[in-house]
C-alpha cells in the first residue's frame, strides 16, 4: 500500500503538472550538481592540506548557506513567474466574463422588451398550467396585475368556459379520450406540435375580445416538457375588418346578380319585341294589299305597346335597385295588411277567401312603407290569383324573428308551383307558370327586387296542388 503510494508520488514527480512537481524537477538537478561540486572541492582541499579542518568546515558551511540562498532565490523567481502568468489569465478571464455579462444583459433586455410588448399577451405556465409568466401585454389586455395570477391561477380564468368545453369535446372525439380543462389548450403542444386558433379572452372586468392564440411547449435540455407558453394577439380589429369585407362582398355579389339579371332581361325582353318589329316591317314591305297593311299596322301597335310596358317595368326595377338609401320608417304589419285587404276587397269576396294573420312575434318593422305595401300586395294577390278551384282559398300571414331578423311568411292552399321545374325562374321578369289570363310575370320580380335592394332575401316552398309558402327575410346584414 505504502509502496504503491510512493511509486505513484514518484511517477507524478517526474511527469506531473502541479506547481510542486514542476519545482521539484527544476530544483533537483541544481541541488544534485551543487552538492556534487562541494563534495569534490571539499575532498580536494582536504587532500592538498592547505587549510585547517575547522576553517574548512566553516567555509563549507558558508558556501552551503550561499548555495541554499541562491537556490531559494531561483525557486522564488520561478514561482513568481508562474504566479504572474496565472494572474494574467485570471485578469483575462475576468475581462471575458464581464463582456459575457454585458452580452447576456443586453439580450435579456431585448427579450424583456419583446416579452413586455403591450400588444401581445404572453403567458407562461408550469406543466400543470399554473401561471409562471405574465407579461405587460397580458396585464394591459386582460386587466389582471401579475401579482394576482402568478403562481395562483391557470389560463382557464381568462377563457370563455363554453368555448373550452366545446373544444374539449372536439379534441376528446378526435383523440378518442378525455381532453378537459387546461389540457384543451396544450394537447397539441404536448405532442410536439403547435396550434394556432381563435379564442375569446375575458378581461378582469368581464368584457370579452377575440384573440389568435399560439401554444408551444417549453422543453429542458433532455426534451422534457417543463411548461407551456401561450402567445395571443388581439384580433378584434382584424375581425371587424373581415366582417366589413364580408358585408361588402355580399353587397357586391347582390349587385352583380342584379346586373346579370338585368343583362338577361335586356337580352330577352327587349330583343324579342325588336325582332318582331323587324319581321313585321319585312311583311309590311312585301305586302301589296292595303287591307293586309292595315292588319300589319295593328300588329305594330301591339308590339309598340308591349315594348313600352317592358321598358317601364325595367325602369321601375332600376329605380328600386338604385334606391338603396330608401327611407325607412316604423310600419305595423297589421296596418299594411288591412290596407292591402281594402285594395283587394273585390277579389277576396269574389274568391271567397279566408284571410288570417298572426303578427305577435313581430308586429312592426323599420322599412320603406311603400315597399312593404308592394311586397304584401303582390304576395297577397298572387295567393288569390293562383287559388285552387277545388278548395276554399285560405291565406295566412305571420311574422317570425329568426336570429334578430324579422321574417314575413305568407302561406296559401292554392295551385302551388313545381319548384323542380320552375324554381330558378320563379322570380324572373315575365315568367309565368300557369295558363292564366292575369299572369304577367311582373309581381314576384318586383317583390324580389325590392326585398334585395333593402338587403333582404325571399324564398319559397311549394308543392303542386298543395299551396305555396313565401318567406321574406327583411334586414339581412343591416
Amino acid at each position: 500500500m505504502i509502496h504503491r503510494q510512493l511509486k505513484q508520488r514518484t511517477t507524478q514527480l517526474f511527469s506531473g503538472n502541479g506547481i510542486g512537481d514542476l519545482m521539484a524537477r527544476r530544483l533537483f538537478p541544481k541541488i544534485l550538481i551543487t552538492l556534487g561540486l562541494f563534495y569534490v572541492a571539499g575532498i580536494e582541499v582536504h587532500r592538498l592540506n592547505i587549510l585547517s579542518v575547522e576553517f574548512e568546515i566553516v567555509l563549507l558551511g558558508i558556501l552551503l548557506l550561499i548555495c541554499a540562498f541562491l537556490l531559494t532565490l531561483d525557486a522564488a523567481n520561478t514561482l513568481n513567474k508562474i504566479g504572474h502568468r496565472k494572474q494574467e489569465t485570471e485578469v483575462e478571464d475576468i475581462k471575458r466574463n464581464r463582456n459575457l455579462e454585458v452580452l447576456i444583459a443586453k439580450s435579456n433586455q431585448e427579450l424583456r422588451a419583446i416579452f413586455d410588448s403591450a400588444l401581445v399577451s404572453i403567458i407562461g405556465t408550469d406543466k400543470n398550467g399554473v401561471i409562471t409568466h405574465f407579461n405587460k401585454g397580458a396585464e394591459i389586455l386582460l386587466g389582471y396585475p401579475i401579482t394576482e395570477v402568478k403562481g395562483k391561477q391557470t389560463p382557464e380564468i381568462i377563457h370563455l368556459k363554453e368555448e373550452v368545453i366545446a373544444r374539449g369535446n372536439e379534441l376528446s372525439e378526435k383523440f378518442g379520450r378525455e381532453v378537459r380543462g387546461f389540457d384543451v389548450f396544450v394537447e397539441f403542444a404536448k405532442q410536439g406540435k403547435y396550434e394556432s386558433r381563435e379564442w375569446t379572452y375575458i378581461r378582469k372586468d368581464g368584457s370579452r375580445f377575440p384573440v389568435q392564440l399560439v401554444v408551444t411547449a417549453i422543453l429542458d435540455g433532455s426534451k422534457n416538457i417543463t411548461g407551456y407558453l401561450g402567445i395571443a394577439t388581439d384580433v378584434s380589429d382584424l375581425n371587424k375588418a373581415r366582417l366589413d369585407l364580408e358585408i361588402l362582398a355580399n353587397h357586391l355579389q347582390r349587385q352583380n346578380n342584379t346586373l346579370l339579371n338585368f343583362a338577361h332581361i335586356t337580352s330577352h325582353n327587349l330583343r324579342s319585341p325588336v325582332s318582331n318589329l323587324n319581321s313585321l316591317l319585312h311583311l309590311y314591305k312585301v305586302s301589296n294589299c292595303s287591307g293586309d297593311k292595315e292588319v300589319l299596322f295593328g300588329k305594330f301597335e301591339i308590339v309598340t305597346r308591349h315594348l313600352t310596358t317592358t321598358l317601364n317595368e325595367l325602369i321601375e326595377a332600376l329605380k328600386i335597385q338604385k334606391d338603396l338609401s330608401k327611407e325607412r320608417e316604423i310600419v305595423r304589419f297589421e296596418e299594411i295588411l288591412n290596407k292591402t285587404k281594402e285594395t283587394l276587397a273585390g277579389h277576396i269576396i269574389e274568391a271567397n277567401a279566408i284571410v288570417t294573420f298572426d303578427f305577435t312575434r313581430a308586429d312592426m318593422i323599420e322599412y320603406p312603407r311603400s315597399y312593404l305595401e308592394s311586397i304584401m300586395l303582390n304576395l297577397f294577390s298572387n295567393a288569390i290569383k293562383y287559388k285552387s278551384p277545388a278548395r276554399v282559398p285560405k291565406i295566412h300571414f305571420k311574422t317570425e324573428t329568426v336570429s334578430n331578423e324579422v321574417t314575413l311568411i305568407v302561406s296559401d292552399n292554392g295551385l302551388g308551383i313545381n319548384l323542380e321545374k320552375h324554381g330558378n325562374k320563379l322570380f324572373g321578369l315575365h315568367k309565368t307558370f300557369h295558363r292564366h289570363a292575369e299572369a304577367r310575370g311582373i309581381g314576384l320580380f318586383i317583390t324580389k327586387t325590392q326585398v334585395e335592394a333593402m338587403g333582404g332575401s325571399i324564398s319559397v316552398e311549394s308543392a303542386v296542388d298543395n299551396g305555396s309558402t313565401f318567406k321574406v327575410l327583411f334586414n339581412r346584414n343591416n
Partner: protein
Amino acid sequence: MNKPFIVCIVDDDEIYQFTVTRTIEFHKLAKKVLVFSDGELAIQFLIDNIDHYEHVPDIIFLDLNMPIMDGWQFIEEYISIKPRIGKKIIIYIVSSSVDPIDLDRAKKVSEISDYLIKPITPDKLHDIIRSLEAL
C-alpha cells in the same frame, strides 16, 4: 304549289306566331302550320297524334322561354316519347336568347338540328325548307 310539309311553331309570342305563319303562307313553304303557345300544348298534340303520323309535323320551330313548359322541358319530354313517333321530326330552336349557356346546351342535344336567333328571315326559312326537301 304548297310544299308538302307540316310546320309546327311552339312560341308564346303572338306577334312572332303571326309573322312566321304569314311568311310561310306567303311563300307557300308548307301545306300546314301548327301553332302552340307553350311546350305542354305541343307535347300533348304529339301524344294525341302518336298513331297518326300524317298529322305529326315534319319540322318544329321551338322557343326556349315559354310559360308552363319551356323549350328545354319540351325537349326532355320529346326525347321520352320519340321512339313511339313513327316519323322523323327536325327541331330548330328559335329564341331571342343570345346567352352562350343556351347555345352550348343546344349543341349538346342531338335532337336539336340548329339554334336560330330571332328574327328568322324569309331567306332563312327558304333555306331550311329546301334542306328538308333534299332529305
